[in-house]
């Protein structure tokens, strides 16, 4: 029994999931939907406590959107045992390469090259990847956004304006972006037109 104790008593940090899954996932989904429907909007999403380097917003987003049908790619230092164990325990999402992933997590540099991700096909533009980009800060400054869901124009601090413009040019194909900084969440769908100030 003693050896069993030693073998099994590893202490991975699996804590920090939803404590009231039905209510919290509904609230989180509402926030996720709002930011995607209104590009430039920044919402607070702080319902889960994932292991570093996953941010609070990205972790909550993962618990809300991932399940066993959504292959996940972890880029750079996000591909660590702590994050893998946590995502597996809470979402049972399988891990995949960038080319096969439905969701990718990492900062903008780690996620490169963006050409690796699926952008859908003309028949099924929805078969594309969603990138969850970890940022140090999010603010309503920088690039000017126009398009569906934006009344006149909005501003959002994007990681890479040129890449966003190239992605918009692929419409209706392309990937979608979620931007996370701490517990802040914003989104940039492929339909949004981006220009510099």
């Amino acid at each position: 029994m003693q050896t069993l104790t030693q073998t099994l008593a590893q202490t991975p940090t699996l804590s920090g999931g939803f404590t009231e899954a039905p209510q919290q996932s509904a609230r989180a989904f509402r926030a996720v939907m709002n930011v995607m429907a209104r590009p430039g909007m920044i919402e607070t999403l702080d319902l889960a406590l994932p292991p570093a380097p996953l941010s609070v917003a990205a972790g909550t987003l993962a618990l809300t959107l991932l399940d066993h049908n959504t292959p996940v790619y972890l880029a750079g230092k996000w591909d660590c045992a702590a994050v893998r164990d946590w995502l597996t325990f809470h979402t049972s999402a399988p891990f995949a390469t960038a080319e096969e992933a439905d969701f990718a997590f990492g900062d903008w540099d780690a996620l490169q090259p963006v050409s690796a991700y699926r952008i859908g096909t003309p028949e099924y533009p929805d078969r594309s990847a969603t990138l969850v980009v970890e940022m140090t800060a999010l603010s309503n400054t920088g690039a000017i956004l126009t398009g569906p869901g934006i009344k006149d124009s909005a501003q959002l601090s994007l990681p890479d304006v040129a890449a966003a413009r190239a992605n918009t040019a692929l419409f209706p194909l392309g990937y979608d972006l979620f931007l996370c900084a701490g517990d802040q969440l914003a989104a940039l769908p492929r339909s949004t037109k981006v220009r510099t100030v």
Partner: protein
Amino acid sequence: MSDRTALNGDPKQAARKAWMSLLAKAPEAQVLALWGERPAPDHQMLRTPELGSTMVRGRIGATGNAFNLGEMTITRCSVQLSDGPIGHAYVQGRSKEKARIAALVDAMMQTDAAESIHAEILTPLAEARASAKAVRAAKAAATKVDFFTMARGED
């Protein structure tokens, strides 16, 4: 698949599998009664008890292909004791309390409390299961019909 094979061959995993299986199938009333008023050790909920259903697959006579027998309700729960061990439970039925206790038992079986838990909860459960099985087998045996054939005189 190789992972699974490796786990099956590991005696510690086999022991854990056995007690998790015992808890999963035990009747709720029995588990609650055996746990009694025992104070739970310091723990946090990794996954609060939640209900779901799973497809039970079967194979008749261990030959042929597996088939879907039907769906059953299960409740799952995971806890972590404050000193580290994690306990998981996937139990049949919709009793959240039973799932919580089963997860706690699984976690405590990985601590120094293992022996007393084994003696006070798992052994009685195993005995109850064995006697229930024996009663059922005896009832079935009473209805057994022995077919025998007289010499048919084919020679």
